[in-house]
């Protein structure tokens, strides 16, 4: 109250009570609102952001998800040896294709036309995984990767899809994420053995490029 008295004392004698009250109220409201403002901002900071944040970087605070979770497909990594029994863990096996010494397993995804693929060598060691995560109810965002894995080693144009997506490559982690440029939603993931920049670009020269290819269409 002392503080209030002080305020009253500062009021001139001929000032009307109403005016004094008004000034007092203004100040009280003012400080209340200051308090609310601070609280709202703090809450805002501490509240996870919506998923439609910017694609790269404007991501929520990195979660505790570890790198291995991000670089695995249903618990499997490139380099794992798979067996007949473990095949089921990849999903419903749709088809198997022999490609030379290698074998390509196609597993069901959310979309029939876009099955997930696991490629193994002659020793049943996984050498690549292609996961299609587009449009699922449980969307992933590239920001989750950047917040955990840091900036990608390569940011490539995807010639096969178009320029509404970009492919972000982590060479050492062996993962390439193709995501929409507007919201960062992941459409494809490619798992591969860690490799060099040159080797990766060479291996994917037909579909991934450092330069855009757009122009008159």
């Amino acid at each position, binding site marked *: 109250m002392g503080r209030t008295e002080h305020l009253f004392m500062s009021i001139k004698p001929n000032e009307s009570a109403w005016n004094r009250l008004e000034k007092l109220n203004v100040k009280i409201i003012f400080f209340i609102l200051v308090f609310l403002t*601070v609280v709202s*901002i703090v809450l805002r900071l501490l509240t996870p952001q919506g998923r439609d944040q910017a694609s790269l970087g404007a991501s929520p605070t990195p979660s505790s998800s570890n790198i291995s979770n991000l670089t695995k497909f249903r618990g499997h990594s490139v380099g794992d040896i798979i067996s007949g029994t473990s095949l089921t863990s990849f999903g419903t096996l749709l088809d198997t294709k022999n490609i030379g010494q290698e074998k390509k397993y196609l597993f069901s995804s959310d979309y029939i036309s876009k099955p997930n693929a696991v490629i193994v060598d002659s020793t049943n060691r996984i050498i690549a995984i292609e996961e299609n995560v587009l449009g699922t109810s449980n969307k992933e965002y590239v920001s989750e990767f950047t917040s955990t894995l840091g900036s990608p080693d390569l940011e490539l144009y995807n010639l096969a899809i178009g*320029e509404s997506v970009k492919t972000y490559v982590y060479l050492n982690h062996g993962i390439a994420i193709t995501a929409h440029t507007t919201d960062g939603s992941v459409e494809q993931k490619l798992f591969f053995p860690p490799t060099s920049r040159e080797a990766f670009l*060479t291996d994917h*020269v037909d579909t991934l490029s450092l*330069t855009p290819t*757009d122009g*008159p269409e």
Partner: protein
Amino acid sequence: MGFTPGSSSGDSAGQLSDAVQLVDPTGPQTLFTKIGDVKKLDLRFVLGKAFTVNTQRAIAWLEALYPLLSEQGLLDGQYFTIPFADGERKVVTVRGDRKQGELQSERLYLSDAVAILAALAKRLHDLPDVDASLKSSLSGFGDTLADSPNVLEWIQGYDKLDKTAFENGFFAENALAAKYHEIQKLIELLLEVFGAYLGANERPPAGYITQEKLTQYLRDAIFADAIFEYLQKSDKFRTLLSVTDALQQNSQVSIQESAETLQRRVTNNQELVRGVINKLLSESNSTIDALIEEFYEEFSPTLYPQLLVDPPRLIWELLDENQKFTLYYKDDDKENQLFSSQAFENALKQFTQHFGENFEKDLEENLLRPAQTVVAAPAVTIDDSADSGDTGLPNEEVFDIYRKNNVLSREQLQYEAAWISSDALLQLFGIHGLNEAGVYGIDPQLYGDIRSEVYALLSTYSVDQINKLFASDSNRMRAVALLIKRLQSNPAISLRIDQVYTHFKLGISISDATAKRSSTAVQAQIAKLLQDEALATSPALNINLQNTVDSLIFNYGLNELLPEEQRVNRKDAVWFVEHLDDKMLLAIFFAGESLAAFQRLPSGEQRAIIEKLKNILSGFIVSRAREMALRAQTADVGKGLLNEGNGVGDEDANAIGAGNITHFTTGHAFSSVREDLGADGKGMDRAIQLHMGADSGFIQRLNDAARLFKPAWDALDIEDQKRIYAFLNLALPPASLGKLPFTIEFMFLTAAQINALRRAQDMSNAASLREESEYATTYYEATEFAQLVPSAVSESIGMMQALDEDEGVAPEEAGASGGEAPGAGTAGPGPAGGVGDSPIPGVRGVKHGPRKESLFNRLREKLKKTKSKKASKVVSNTLAKSFKKFAAEAAKQLTQWIGNIVPGLGTALAAAGGILQFLWKHREKVLGALAGMAIAFIRSLFSLPGLLGFGVGFGAGAAFGPIGAAVGGPMGAMLGSSAFQTATTTGATTTGLSQQGAATTGLGQSATSATGSAAAATTTAETSVLANLAANILSPAAIGVIAPGALIMMSLFSTLYIIFTIQGSFLVRTPSLVGFYTNFPPGGPPLEGCFAQGIAGFSFPDNVRPDRVISTAWTEGDWNTFTGAWNAEASTNACFVKRVCGTGTPVTIFRLPGSAYGGWAPSGLNGTALGLYDLAFLGGGSSEYTVIHELGHIIDYRNPGLRADFIAKTGLGASSGNCLNYEFGCADAEAFAQAVVLGLIWDKYKFGGTTSYNFPQIAPKAYEWVVQNIYSCQ
């Protein structure tokens, strides 16, 4: 590695008998009197040489090779056997119905040649270690033949085609187009095969075979247009017609035809050629190269294989007869006698007299005499630099083969000599100079001088040295360099060069050039003029560009410039570049209207090569422009372009005289390449010496200078480097996260220029900026910052905090500004008017020391440290600071405002007064910062989410990334937030209060734009605020500049306005921001708010991309066409409108020049803008089709997940190669866009006016999806 085109192996597999003579079946010539070790390299040479002439000849040579190879057992029951480098014989199996015996008794038809190539392609494809890209190209070649009997039939039909067939309209059938398409594919593959096969070492010296030429060849072979057209116009038609008939008949005549027939044919051919050439000479002022080119074009390739001599040689001879040019003959009495007009006739007469019984002997003695007898001069020592070191030349063994086989025939000598002479003269005189100086015969004295120098050069060499001199690309260029040196050392020639360039100014006055000799603006102007010049006339374009490409290849070496491509693709880059035709060069290096051609390059890989080349060439153009400017201003250029190196005396590049820049530039280009490569540089040094006449000391100085500058370059941040690139008109390399390569042009910038560039916000105005703004941020920084900061609040807070702290480091602010900032509610004092002073406190501080780390870098670091745990503390502290500084004027202002605000909110807003007061106090700084940053940051600053509890969630608004996305998107999503600029007035006065009446209804503000144009903007809080911002702030005439005195108003929540007076010339850095939204088109919704007209002069899609194109102004008619296309049907479909316009941000439609296809929705603009070319405005269905297709891309950009869902559910797109009826490269995005447009128009129009596309029937899944998701969504 089974097949390495560029290697020369020493294996002896496939050796042929020395006794065999290879006879050219197309003419009575013995091509080689002896065939020694015919190995892969030689075969490649033979084929390559043949292809240099024409395909017909190549096939004929294949024919000639056939018995030879057969005799050696190389055919072995098949058509062809190729001894590969690994010694293994690869048997080529031919698919076809031709029996073995037929080949031996008949001509090898084109079909056989194609079949052989097909088989070869297949073998190459099957080899295990063939490069993947080549393998891909080869894939299906054989199958193409097998699966397309029509093609084989077509080719075989060609074999048997004669004039009658032509007249009967053999190919007038409807299927011609389809066949032609197939043939086109074959041609491409043929080129692929031969391109790889030829390798890098043997480049055709001129008149390279291109796809276009091959196409033309086929066309001519079929229709013989050129011949017949010419003959019909020619005065000698009647005489020549008989010859033509004979030639037509000859195509069916075997090489065993009678001597009499041959004799007649030879005679007639000579007459025919003479007639044509003389006609050309009389009608044309063409240069020699152009003449040769013209000759090739004029003559059907079916004709000149029948000639006794190569056209170039005959041209020289006839030029000689015309007393125009006799440069290239050895000054040997016997030679002169032979090739003088009368002597030639005598020789020809003698030849024809003996024709038959002494045929081969005559050929030997008169026409195909070995080189050693031609070059009679004593041997002297060739320049050491050409003899030693790793030159990349074929090895001695190969030279031996050349010598043994007299490969360097007389024709070659003449041709090569002509080539290097032409090249040297072109380099010295330029295309204008050649004409002006009368090099070719107009001035007999000059002509004689040149001729003497050429002779003097060549006469110094022995046979072996001659062989080496012309043995490879690099050596030919050495020869050119040597000739240049010699020509320049001749005072008379040098004087003439001087005279040429005295008159050759390209419109730049000498005084200008002198005053601004180091001005890149002048250089840019000249570069533009050069470009215009090159574009103006085809010959100039051809020569300039091809010469540049030649220089690129020869001087710099694609191996060095494109190491990755060369390694990966095994010389494919060389092949690719060499086979670019003029149109492609035009398209690639000058873009513009022919950009579509570039877009249709077969692979991204080749486009990547081109991108690099464009970067390199852009440097060349600047360099050339500089050279031109310097030549124009100096009278002593004739003393030797290449001899001034000694004048360079200082290691500091800034001290190097402008007159030496040419040398410096060129020289350092070499040394730079070398240094970048880390190579030993010996070869490059020699090249510099040869090419420039520079001594080793000069080279050393160049390198020293480079070493001085490189660290400075490396110390620049990437954005600074980008600005410098832009300033120098250098195209940026493809998107890269790393720093840019060191550019030699950097060495010519002064420290002041560099500083200005480093600190300026707009490169185009950099030179005029004298001081650094502490808050001159960059787009890069702003976006980086925006991406790194976890939330909009902390961005704002962080900025304020930084501003507070910065007060302590800008003590000059108060003094320089002359006092405190103007009080609230009063106008800014207007521009201070001080020379060089910015009226913006803080900006005005002239006494800034070395540039500190940028504000946003510091902020970024600061905020990164604070992150979430400290966020609340930061906020509290910042607010506390703000309250402490709650100024009386701000309080007064706020109180006034509050009084006019929605009851209840005013007090609440006062709570934000700390922030507002802070902003107010620092308004100038804030605006300074705003002016230089991406709109994304503006958004961050004002979207104080949840601040008062009635936020509308805009803090989690649309994403922003690239600037294109940032513009409009976030701001547009900020309901109730807006900003705009009011009248530009000097010393503008405002209280901001008069606008408050509009507060509750948004900005009912009438204002005049910065340029005075009407830009009244009445808007509600719900309309796109950024559009209003841009519409009011910006105008076409003031692109990128927020005008001095402009009043900026920004609103928070549509209720509270913060008013800033802009007092300086803020340069809005990102054209993406400023180039948009000039005004809304008239008309009602949904057009309004959904589209905006793009301004003219906008660099589309940005100012960085090398393939950018400058937009033009809209005409009313074009805009009506666009709106008509939109309103035809799409605008009435709510779902479609929602997909396109749902973000609330208008799509800016730019009018792009040129007749390239449709439109362009580039990634850099991320769905905010669209460019439409001429063909989008044909009207009717064509326009609707184009517009809706392009809007399909916009939908893709603006609706994440939609396209992916479409692809996943329909199976269309790249993986299946099914893009419906989209023809220009299948990618998922194209399949999607095509489905979008088909869903609307499939039953309305016919493609090409004739072809229906029953979308529901052909692609039911896609149709259903589009209907459900694009045209009938909720």
